[in-house]
């Protein structure tokens, strides 16, 4: 019973922690993250994808709900306009689960899936911002200055955190 609760709690609590850390890290390192090349450490997304990869195979319904609610919160607290990440996060979970049918879950496969997810988030997020009239960047500028660096940063974060997070999920799942 205790084990089950622990398994159920790890994913949502990690998600909330990642949510807050994302904004705090953005503030602490804003001199380099919000400079000429605007970058975002998408930690919430990272945890969401890692959760889908390592934990989500039996918890699809909870995963979608978590993604949806977290997306809505993300929109409300960070962006101020609701409806952008609220739908992108579940979509990303869907895409990840879809690709997991064809790709094995290992470092290379997971990285490829994560890259596709990040590209979806960047492009659709920008499109959503455009619809909400929030964007201060032109599309060309976005592609030239923000797209590449953000992709690179998140790729590095994913590679660095891949094994620790995988071990964490395995540890919680296997401990009696």
């Amino acid at each position, binding site marked *: 019973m205790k084990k089950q609760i622990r398994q159920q709690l790890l994913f949502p609590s990690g998600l*909330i*922690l990642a*949510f*807050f*850390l*994302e*904004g*705090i*890290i*953005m*503030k*602490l390192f*804003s*001199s380099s993250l*919000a*400079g*000429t090349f*605007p*970058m*975002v*450490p*998408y930690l919430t997304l990272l945890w969401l994808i890692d959760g889908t990869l390592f934990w989500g195979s039996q918890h699809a319904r909870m995963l979608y709900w978590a993604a949806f609610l977290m997306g*809505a*919160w993300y929109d*409300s*607290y*960070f*962006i*101020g*306009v*609701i*409806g*952008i990440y*609220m*739908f992108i996060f*579940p*979509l990303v979970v869907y895409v990840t689960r*879809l690709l997991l*049918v064809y790709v094995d879950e290992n470092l290379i496969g997971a990285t490829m899936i994560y890259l596709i997810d990040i590209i979806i988030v960047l492009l659709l*997020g*920008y499109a*959503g*911002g455009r*619809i*909400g*009239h*929030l*964007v*201060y*960047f032109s599309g060309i*500028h*976005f592609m030239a*200055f*923000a797209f590449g660096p*953000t992709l690179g940063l998140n790729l590095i974060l994913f590679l660095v955190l891949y094994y620790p997070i995988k071990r964490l999920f395995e540890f919680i799942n296997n401990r009696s």
Partner: protein
Amino acid sequence: MRKFFSSRNLVILVICLVLSIGLISATAAMRSRRARPTLIQRVSNDVAGFGNTVLSVPANGVGGFFSSVRDLLNTYQENNYLKSRVHRLNSTEVQNQALKSENQQLKKQLKLNATLTDYNKINATVLNRTPSNWQQQLIINKGSLAGVKKNMSVVVDQGLVGRISEVNATNSKVELITDSGDDASRFAVQVAGEKQTINGLISGYNNANSELEMGNLTANDKIKKGTPVMTSGLGGITPKGLYVGKVTSVSGTAGGTASQINIKPAADTKTITAVTVIEKK
């Protein structure tokens, strides 16, 4: 093999797309019209703000450690520089005092109770920055309970950094001056030309060299490099006399009209940890 798109999934996708666009447009429109967001949004934002404050304490400790080390390394140089400034500051302060009292007396004689330069101050700490690469927004730890209202101006020591765009009970969002999105409100500013004062709006931000662009100019005059740019108080939202930055160049002289003045902002919007919210009296 599973079908890539079953018809059920396609229907869900289309419904989500429509809902998404509808929600974005609706909330974006509401955000610019209403003074405060909906109750659900306010409550969830306040809960988030609380969690954020709790987590900020250890995070700021770590961040504070690094900046302390950096500060320590700069101490000697900074001390020398500051010593030279302090002497000048004293005399300016005395002069300021005299001017202030004179100004008050003159206002009394003219029966001017509140002018564009009078304002109240609310101090706040920055909780976080919006993790987005197409939006420049801060979240601060004071909201409607502390008296923050929408459209108030936000400054740091060096100058104007933005304005309040959304108010919750215990936190609010600041739209930075460098955020020149379609929906962002423009700041009315003025700069002294050689013969006359030129009014205009902050119309954009150049991300490559971190300079603000001032457009919609009312007059054509020569402007010296380094001339200070202030808010003009026109439009009635921002108080007059908030320092914005210094002129670096004038560009785009099509047909003899200076169409754009480039401004080096006084405040570095990338490293803000505490702000002051200014309310017009």
